[in-house]
Every structure is written in C-alpha cells, then in structure tokens.
C-alpha cells in the first residue's frame, strides 16, 4: 500500500511561492487501479513525482508498505524506487538502445546477470506484444509501441506499483484503448497496483477502481469509482464527471431530483411509471448513462412539476423502486 500523509509541495520562485500540493492524504490499496484526475496545473504530475521522490516533498510523508520514503537514505531509496515502476507521456526511452536493451536497462542498474536479464526482457516484450520489435530502435517504433516498451521496462524489476503520468495523452483513441487494456491485464495478471494520472474522464471510466479528484493542489474527493461517480460531492468532481448536469441544474422551476443508477436497469421505465402511477409529469432535464467496468451507471435529473403532495408521492414511488435519488436545488 502506498500512503501519502499531509503531502505538501511548494515551489519557491522569485515572485512568491507556488503551492503545487497541499496536505494531500491518499491511500493506494494493493491491487487497485487508482485514477488521479484534475485540470491542468492541479498538481497531478507533482503528486506522482513526489510518490517516487523525483521531487522532494516540502512536508509530509510517502509510506511504501509502511516505510517512509522521505526518510530513506540514498541507497535504500534506490531500492525502494525499484519496487515502483514509472511510465511517462513522452515515453522517455533511451534513443540509442534497442527495445530489448531498453527493457534490460533497469536490470543492468541492479546488476542482474546478463543471461537472466536477456530472458526477462524477452518475456516482458512478449507480455506487451512486441516480441518481433525487440531489436528495433525507438525511432523505428510508433507511439503506442514506444509506450509498450516503456511499460515492459517499468516492469522489469517486478515492481509492486506502476505510476503512469498521462501515459496515453500522446496517443490516438484506438491506441489509448489498447494501452489501457494492457495496463488492466498487468493489474490483473501480475497484481501490480497502478496509479493513473490523467485529465481524461474516459481513462478513469475504462480501467480505474478508485479515483481521486485533484483541484488546485488539494484532493477534492477520493474513493471508489462507483461512489465518486454516483455521488460526486465537490464542485470540481461534478464538473469533471457530469459537466452537463451543472448546466441542467441552472434553470428555474420546481423541485429537482437527481436519480442515480448504479449497475441496475436504468432509465425510462421508472420515469414512465412515475407519470402513469402518480400522475406526475416529470421533465427530464438531463440524462447520461455510461458503462464502467461492465456495469451501467447513470445520472438523470428530473424536475417534478406537481404540487407538494404529488411530489412526495413521487419520492415514495422512487424509493419503492430502489432508485437512489438526491435532492438538488
């Protein structure tokens, strides 16, 4: 488990200070795929760089299975870093080395015997589906292929954790999808916990089990993806997750309810039932369903246009049909 405790990072500068992270508390459970989402400049890259101590936190702790990385001596830090793999938006491959030699690089660093390193590189390249490109140089590979090599390289030392900073941001949608599926496979088959930094909601939806929303250097909210997506608490999370919802709530009118569908049957039958059985016309102001991890999740905002009594009946009806709803102003 990776635990961040009161993590704060302040960049000093001539014109004052930039607070990139402020009192961030976060636990990344083993085996999870943890998404960190936020707008540009929110501090996502700083967060992931602090986890690996590429950036020294100004305050706070990074606990790796209980061991404080910020207090580790240089040599110990090197060892700890080997249990955390990292991949980047720009791949950061060694341009003068072949794909296989890139994968062997971390093994050379920890002085793994040559034969063993060679075999491990072959295994990993085959895991990421690039066996036939072993002897190609990075300049001969496409972006998606480069990221696959980078993933293989990051896994060479059998890390427990993999940090990805905008790993798919430089790739087209199809390639992005294939890389995400690869990450999921690695999570499933190797049990590697993955931290996925992204500014794209889609990435979180596709593979994450947990999500933290970062807003102006603070964590606005964090938790399991279903929970955060169903009941986003913070303004920023609502903005990121259900951008149209905000707009739909802006209008005037009667009392608004947000219905939440969590993996059950979703949508229309309930609304028509509402109209037929309670005789209340409900305006649908907003509806959005999406599939996350194989289940259907959705939000729907309806406006109840009846009188108080009718509206109360509508709420009862919804509750009786196991629809989760929340009053919205």
């Amino acid at each position, binding site marked *: 488990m990776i635990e961040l405790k009161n993590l704060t990072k302040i960049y000093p500068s001539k014109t004052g200070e930039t607070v990139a992270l402020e009192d961030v508390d976060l636990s990344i459970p083993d085996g999870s795929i943890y998404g960190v989402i936020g707008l540009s400049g929110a501090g996502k890259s700083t967060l992931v760089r602090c986890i690996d101590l590429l950036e020294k936190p100004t305050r706070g702790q990074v606990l790796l299975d209980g061991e404080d990385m910020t207090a580790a001596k240089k040599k110990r830090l090197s060892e700890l*870093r080997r249990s955390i793999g990292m991949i980047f938006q720009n791949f*950061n491959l*060694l341009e*003068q080395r072949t794909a296989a030699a890139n994968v062997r*690089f971390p093994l050379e660093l920890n002085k793994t015997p040559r034969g063993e390193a060679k075999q491990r590189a072959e295994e990993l390249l085959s895991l990421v589906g690039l066996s036939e490109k072993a002897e190609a*140089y990075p300049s001969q590979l496409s972006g998606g292929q480069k990221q696959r090599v980078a993933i293989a390289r990051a896994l060479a030392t059998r890390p427990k954790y993999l940090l990805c900073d905008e790993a798919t941001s430089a790739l087209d949608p199809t390639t992005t999808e294939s890389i995400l599926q690869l990450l999921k496979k690695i999570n499933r088959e190797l049990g590697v916990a993955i931290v996925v930094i992204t500014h794209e909601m889609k990435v979180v939806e596709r593979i994450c089990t947990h999500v933290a929303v970062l807003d102006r250097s603070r964590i606005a909210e964090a938790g399991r993806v279903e929970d955060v997506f169903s009941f986003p608490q913070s303004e920023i999370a609502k903005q990121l997750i259900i951008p149209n919802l905000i707009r739909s709530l802006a209008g005037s009118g009667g009392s608004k309810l947000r219905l939440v569908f969590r993996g059950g049957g979703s949508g229309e039958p309930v609304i028509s039932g509402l109209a037929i059985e309670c005789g209340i016309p409900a305006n649908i102001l907003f509806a959005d369903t999406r599939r996350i991890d194989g289940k259907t999740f959705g939000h729907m905002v309806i406006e109840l246009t009846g009188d108080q009594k009718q509206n109360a009946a509508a709420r009862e009806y919804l509750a009786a049909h196991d629809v989760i709803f929340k009053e919205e102003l």
Partner: protein
Amino acid sequence: MSDVLISLFRDNTMWLGIWQTVYLTVLSTALAYAIGLPLGVLLCTTGRGGLAPVPWLNKLLGAIVNIFRSIPFLILMVAFLPVAKAIVGKSYGPAAMVVMLVIAAAPYVARMVESSLKEVDAGVVEAAKSMGANPFQIVWKVYLPEAKPSLLVGAVIGMVTVLGYSAMASTINGGGLGQIAIFYGYNNFKDDVIWMCVFFTVIIVQVIQEGGMFLAARTDKRLRAKAGRAKKCGRK
C-alpha cells in the same frame, strides 16, 4: 615548383611534416579529452538543476574554463612555456607543443562536452532516476551513450581546432606542416611551399571532418532508423 619544394618532397621532409601534424593533432586531442571530458561531465552534473548540484564547484570550474578560453592561443603559448618545461623538461619541440595544445583545447572540449550532455532529454534522465539509477550510473549509462553522436561531432570540431592551433604552435619547433610553411616557405619567400602546406592541411581537415561526421551519423540510432526507412521507401 621551386627547388626548395622539390627537395622537401625528395628528402621526405614534407611527408614527415604531414605525419607529425596528424600525429600531434590526434595525440593532443586525445589528451585534451582525457581532461576535458571529465571536466565537461562535472560542469554538466554540478550545475543548477544537474544530477548532483555543487554550486561553488560549478562556479569555480566554469570560471577557470572561461579564463582559459578567453586567452588568445598565441599569448597562452608564450605564458605557459615554463609550465611545458616543468612537465616535459623542454620549452620547445613536439612534446612542449602537445602540452600547449592540451592546455588550450581542454577547456574548449569541456564546454563542448557540457553542451552535448545538456542536450540529453531530461525526461530520460528522470526515467533512469525513477528506476533507482545512481548519479554515476546515469552519467555512464544515460548521458554518455545518449550523447555519443553529439560528442563525436564535438570531437571533430575539437580536432580541427587543435589542428589550427598546431600550425601556430609549430613556431616553437613543434614540427609539422606549420613549421615547414614558416621555415621553408615564409622565411625563404617560397609561396609555393606555403600553399603546398595549406593544401595538405586542407586535405587533413577534410578527412577528419568527413570521417568524423560519417562515424557520428553511423552511431546515431535516431538517424540510422530514418535512413533505413528512407531506403525501404526508395525501393518501392
């Protein structure tokens, strides 16, 4: 052709001069790198934002390098004759000349190495750090191999510069084409001797330049990949 020039070819003085020029240039460049390469690595790594920042050391080394680089070679040569004498026992002759060339070229080499290393993508260095590489490993396995093509180009420029200096250094009896041009050509008013020396110098520069660039291009995997692709496209 003047008799002087003909006799220079006959008694092999000219060929010996060419050989001396090549030999002294290569030797001096190699020694300049022996000093300049580690110095360049230090300049790059101890700088602000470098691998292992040591600001005072960086400033000190930078200042020394700058001082040496701003002294014109001719003056440096005169000023450092006693140093040459202390090192090789004589303040004239080829050995003294090599000392002069190394003193003049090493700081220049250091700056070129520094700039080559700074071209290496910071992201790649960061990736190596994230894999637990120590500073020594980063220099040895990331900076130097990744900068190799650029370092080779720098070496070519360095060697040509040393060749240029060596002509001037010939005046202290260092030998080589420069000395022939001055002693047999300039002092005897034989323009054809001077021009012949210039001609051979140009040839040597060309060989170093073309050979070095060829080598640099060949070792650069970024270029080779492109060339390979271009060839394939051409065949279609």
